[in-house]
């Protein structure tokens, strides 16, 4: 018997893995990948709530996921464009090397 | 929806009866869970064994080579077995024995994984295709989106193959295939959206039913969508004239340069699989699938469907045997500047017509009016957009100028005159 808790647990584990990746990776693209994982886990959670919800607004979960996917696509495009642009000017995309403000 | 007359399991016009009988038999002897798992596997394997594998081997490999051979004034394979029919088997045996080389500097894991990633979606694609009235393995409500989603996956495999080979030709092929498929996915999805808007359904059996009910195939109602779909899908499939990712005269074999043995064989076989899937999809959506204006009551519908699929596949072979290859910038420009605006135009046109259909009380006959509108509208749209882009059909001389005596440079007086 699968319950809401099962899906929420998977979502949480995925979210925290994504969080660790986003916090610890040196490479900007790696960080982006962590963020994408976090967004995915949130989508999973939303869909799970929508599936198991009792209220009338079940479709809200789906609609919200659709928006999240849209925003994630836009975010990935801009982030990767930024990464390429940063690489071009600084010859690196390692986030701890991008300390122009500090020096 | 017109269904077939009998429910006898031996009525070969509708194989779903047979499969239902088999499933009920399993259900009696096995627990529900087992049937749940076994039944789809049986159905899928049967569909694959009956349709895809023979098509792939004997139409894709043998037939393609024989037809191309015929076009090229040569014989094609005719040594192994009667009329060379066993040539695919011989090819497969040869490929199995061949060493699958891996270059030293290649990424060995990925190079091994790429063919696997390439094969899996090809098999999945056939899951949603309705072979007959009740002969669809997975009647997914969003079957059309499923098809779009899954047919986007092999590009990744091809990219991985090209990148992991660590060869410049392969890398070129990989970059080209990704650039191409991203570009052509856009018009492709837009024209399929036209189909969805028009038929009000995303399930492939539903689209076939729509065409059965309106007694008209979508190719007549949306010729523009069909043309865009055909061009875009042949670009995604890497078939000539758009096979730039494997262009053998430019980048040797593109992303397959370093592959050999059965690893290459998987790519080769599944290329045919994707072409067949695209052909099956096109005949489902635009040619009415298994329907043929009542003929499906007499001829097994799955046979009609297979015939249509192979007709499409023949067109793929035909273009491959005839046309030269375009350059990548021309192809990209074509996708973005030509196909995309036409697809958007078609979407507008079709949406308006759908609205009109919803409001009007003309009944089913409206599709014929729509056909009468859409065919000239499409032709005019193509013509006007081509003129807008600055394309003018000029008279390009096909014969050079002729002079009697040798004597240095002869300036061109009137380039438009041409010929003799």
């Amino acid at each position: 018997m699968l319950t809401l808790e099962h899906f929420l647990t998977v979502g949480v584990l995925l979210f925290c893995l994504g969080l660790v990746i986003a916090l610890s990776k040196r490479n900007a693209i790696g960080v982006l990948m962590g963020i994408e994982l976090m967004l995915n886990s949130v989508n999973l959670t939303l869909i799970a709530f929508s599936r198991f919800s009792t209220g009338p607004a079940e479709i809200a979960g789906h609609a919200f996921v659709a928006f999240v996917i849209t925003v994630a696509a836009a975010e990935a495009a801009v982030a990767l464009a930024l990464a390429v642009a940063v690489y071009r000017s600084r010859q690196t995309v390692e986030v701890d090397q991008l300390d122009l403000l500090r020096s | 929806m017109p269904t077939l007359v009998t429910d006898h399991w031996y009525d070969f016009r509708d194989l779903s009866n047979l499969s239902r009988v088999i499933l009920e038999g399993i259900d009696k002897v096995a627990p529900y869970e087992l049937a749940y798992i076994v039944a789809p596997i049986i159905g899928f394997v049967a569909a694959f064994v009956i349709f895809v594998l023979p098509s792939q081997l004997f139409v894709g490999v043998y037939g393609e080579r024989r037809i191309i051979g015929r076009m090229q004034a040569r014989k094609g394979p005719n040594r192994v077995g009667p009329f060379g029919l066993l040539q695919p088997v011989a090819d497969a045996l040869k490929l199995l024995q061949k060493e699958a080389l891996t270059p030293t500097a290649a990424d060995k894991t990925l190079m091994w994984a790429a063919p696997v990633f390439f094969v899996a979606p090809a098999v999945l694609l056939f899951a949603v295709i309705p072979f007959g009235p009740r002969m669809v393995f997975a009647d997914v409500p969003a079957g059309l989106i499923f098809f779009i989603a899954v047919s986007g996956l092999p590009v990744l495999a091809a990219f991985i193959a090209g990148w992991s080979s660590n060869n410049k030709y392969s890398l070129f092929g990989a970059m080209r295939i990704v650039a191409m498929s991203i570009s052509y996915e856009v018009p492709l999805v837009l024209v399929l959206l036209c189909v969805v808007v028009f038929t009000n359904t995303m399930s492939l059996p539903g689209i076939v039913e729509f065409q059965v009910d309106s007694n008209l195939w979508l190719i007549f109602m949306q010729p523009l969508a069909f043309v865009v779909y055909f061009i875009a899908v042949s670009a995604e499939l890497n078939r000539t004239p758009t096979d730039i990712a494997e262009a053998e005269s430019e980048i040797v074999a593109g992303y397959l340069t370093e592959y050999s043995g059965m690893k290459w064989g998987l790519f080769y076989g599944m290329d045919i699989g994707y072409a067949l899937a695209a052909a099956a999809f096109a005949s489902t959506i635009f040619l009415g699938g298994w329907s043929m204006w009542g003929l499906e009551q007499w001829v097994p519908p799955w046979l009609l469907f297979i015939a249509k699929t192979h007709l499409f596949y023949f067109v793929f072979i035909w273009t491959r045997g005839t046309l030269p290859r375009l350059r990548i910038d021309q192809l990209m420009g074509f996708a973005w500047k030509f196909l995309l605006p036409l697809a958007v135009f078609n979407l507008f046109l079709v949406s308006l017509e759908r609205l009109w259909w919803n409001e009007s009380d003309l009944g089913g006959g409206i599709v014929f009016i729509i056909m009468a509108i859409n065919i000239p509208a499409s032709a005019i749209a193509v013509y006007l957009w081509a003129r807008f882009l600055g394309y003018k059909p000029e008279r390009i001389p096909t014969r050079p100028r002729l002079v009697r005596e040798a004597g240095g440079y002869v300036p061109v007086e009137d380039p438009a005159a041409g010929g003799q």
Partner: protein
Amino acid sequence: MDNAGVQIAFWVLSILTLVAAGGVMVSRNLLHAVLFLIVAFIGVAGFFVLLSAEFIAMAQIVIYVGAIAVLILFAIVLTPQSIRDNSETAMVGPAILLGVALTAVFLFVIHDTTWATDATDPGLSASDLGRALLSTWVLPFEIASVLLTAALVGAIMLVRSETEESEDVPDADA
């Protein structure tokens, strides 16, 4: 939600997704990490199918696997070899600690809450989603399209190099 097939699928998908997400964390090569990420995306799409959200699952595959992952691969291949390293910064220890703590808190909350659930399938289809997007959520829907346009233009402007400003760059080749 209680037949064997769904249960088997759930456990297989859980293992697949979490192992793939772990692979993103541990693989040293950025390209391998992207491939693990793709597997994780496909696993999440599988969850969506289990939760009877087929349309969202397909959208997940089209957008995440077909677009975002390819975009990431492209960005990696277009930048030189030196940045294909996927190692961690010194912050990896605190990050893992934070992650573990957060997991513990969340898991506690999840299992300690009594969820008012309804196991029957609401049976939402793509047309329901479409109707919702164009009625209740029409404003965010429009804003999202504006956002996409802005992101498209912004991405092109970011990677456009100054030297090519004067040239006749075919702006369609984004």
